[in-house]
């Protein structure tokens, strides 16, 4: 079914917000005001937006270390994410988690993660819970090419397949895990082909085509929701910048390669195609750009004003409940 103009604009809006957010985050980080270190999502926006746009509010998402895009796409406000990056008390995790520990139970966001593959297992577990409860929820586990050679990938996919769990395994294959090229990490560089080993469907798609991501995700979500089990979706994409801020990203990649992928920008591709095939105007997109920028400016101001957590709360929440019992 052909996507509507509103959908197009909504997908575009999602992507440019992430783009603006990440560029801003880089800027703040480079100015020395941001604690820790960050992994920015610039270039991969179509995956997060395409997938999360197909999910209900109470569907689950388990994310990675490169999780700002997932968090924003699933529905955490830019203010809350930016504040969390600053370690401020108004962040979505109260400043306690930072970039790799963004959490929001109200929208099923099970956390970005500092360890590589556990998100796969956590997402699978949430799907298990949904199945036992017969709630109709689905889960999405995002992970990169760097996770697929880890035991957790195998165990997670096997569990999901064997128990027929309502989950999507979305691999953001950006060809590099930190500085390791994928073809040096494994002999079988076709991630989607691994699905066959578990007898679940696996597809490889253009991760920078947000409409394709959206469409294929829709099918997989429907399949999961009706009880027909998991799908592995390999999204081919690319990150413009280094693995983390501080990594120039060119010692193990060529400038030419980067340039080619930048030209394959998911944002401009959608925009151009929408103008061409849907009759939307540049002005409309410019206006969306500007709105997105405003949101990010506002979020930045909010985050920079938010205070650090009171040290008297340092030992709060180590355990749940006053004595841990609450049921």
């Amino acid at each position: 079914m052909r996507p509507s103009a509103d959908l197009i604009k909504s997908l575009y809006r999602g992507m440019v917000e992430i783009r603006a957010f990440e560029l801003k985050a880089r800027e703040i980080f480079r100015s020395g005001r941001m604690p820790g270190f960050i992994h920015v999502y610039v270039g991969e926006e179509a995956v997060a937006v395409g997938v999360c746009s197909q999910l209900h509010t109470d569907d689950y998402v388990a994310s990675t270390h490169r999780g700002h895009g997932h968090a924003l796409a699933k529905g955490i406000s830019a203010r809350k994410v930016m504040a969390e990056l600053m370690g401020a008390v108004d962040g979505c995790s109260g400043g306690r988690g930072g970039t790799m520990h963004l959490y929001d139970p109200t929208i099923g966001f099970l956390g970005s993660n500092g360890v590589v593959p556990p998100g796969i297992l956590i997402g699978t577990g949430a799907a298990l819970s949904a199945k036992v409860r017969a709630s109709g929820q689905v889960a999405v586990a995002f992970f990169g090419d760097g996770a697929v050679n880890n035991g957790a990938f195998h165990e997670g996919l096997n569990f999901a397949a064997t128990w027929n769990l309502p989950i999507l395994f979305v691999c953001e294959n950006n060809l590099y895990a930190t500085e390791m090229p994928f073809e040096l990490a494994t002999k079988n560089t076709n991630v989607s082909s691994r699905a066959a080993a578990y007898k679940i469907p696996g597809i490889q798609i253009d991760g920078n085509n947000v409409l394709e991501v959206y469409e294929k995700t829709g099918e997989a979500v429907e399949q999961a929701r009706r009880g027909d089990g998991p799908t592995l979706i390999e999204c081919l994409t690319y990150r413009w910048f280094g693995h983390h801020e501080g990594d120039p990203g060119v010692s193990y990649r060529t400038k030419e390669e980067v340039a080619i992928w930048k030209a394959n920008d998911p944002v401009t591709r959608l925009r151009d195609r929408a103008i061409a095939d849907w009759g939307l105007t540049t002005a409309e997109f410019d206006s969306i750009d500007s709105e997105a920028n405003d949101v990010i400016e506002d979020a930045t101001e909010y985050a920079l004003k938010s205070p650090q957590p009171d040290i008297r709360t340092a030992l709060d929440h180590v355990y749940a409940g006053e004595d841990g019992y609450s049921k």
Partner: protein
Amino acid sequence: MTVTRVASISEVDLPASARVISYAEAGVEALREEMRRDPSIIYMGQGIGPRGGNFQQSRGLWAEFGEQRVRDTPIAERGQAGLGIGAALAGSHPIVDIVFLDFVLEAISEIIQQASTIHYVSNGKFKVPVVIRAAGGGLRSSGPHHSHTFYSFFMHIPGLKVALPATPFDVKGLLKTTLRDENPVIFIEHKGLYNTKGRVPEDEYFIPFGEAVVRRPGEHITLIALSLMVNKAMRAAAILEEQGISVEVIDPRTLVPFDKETVLSSVAKTGRVVIVDEAYASCGVSAEIAAIVASEALYELDAPVLRICTLPAPHAFSPSLDNYLIPSVERIVSEVTALVGSDL
């Protein structure tokens, strides 16, 4: 709802007519009662389904609650733990049965990196009510990969609770409490205890965490024993009594929270401490208890702290070596005698 503790029931007060069941049966009863009450409890592990568990520790549950809630898993402890954590985040209360405590190492990253941290780093938004259940300890030369006693690193990490029941009465009471707790709980049983029997009330009861029990009052030395070592300690104490040494045996029952008060007031009375632990001494729970005593009861100590632990070698297979390495009743008797004997 807070946990109801039926204060008047204690193991010591149970009438002689109270029925006697095994440690394994007591655990199953707890699970059955709680699973009937709370549909969010799910149970997974290797062989815990139709087979009822390697130690019969889940017998009858699959038959009653079915394959949705009671699931056999492949050999994938990390996956099991990760799934358990994910399910907990989504509102279930999963029990992940690792069966042999040794294999918890396959899952340790998920337990420590994920389960113990999420409640804190999410600023209290997510709870992780997952139970990691396993049986530790040596039994009949189970060998180097099936004999370990791992609990010190769980005691080390904030955010986890650790239970260590030594009797059927304690297993049931603590497991029920565990399944009302919204924190990740490491529930450690002992293979050598599954067939032991004890009196267990029919009426519902709970045992709160952080409550040690004095199994045997004494005057001359405080002996803290963990898990199966409680039984050895009691036998040793009986022998020592004949020699005129009166041993007070304390069973902490939970390591986190740990009942310091009972231990410290016992030390104030006796002036001497010995810890009997089947784990290794170095950086173990025995070291932690010794540190607590040294920092909070130094001026009560009349003698150095004594630790009786498994000697620092992998668990040997041959029975002669295995029995030599782990603490024996003889070793407890002779070391306590050496510490106390001439000073009375």
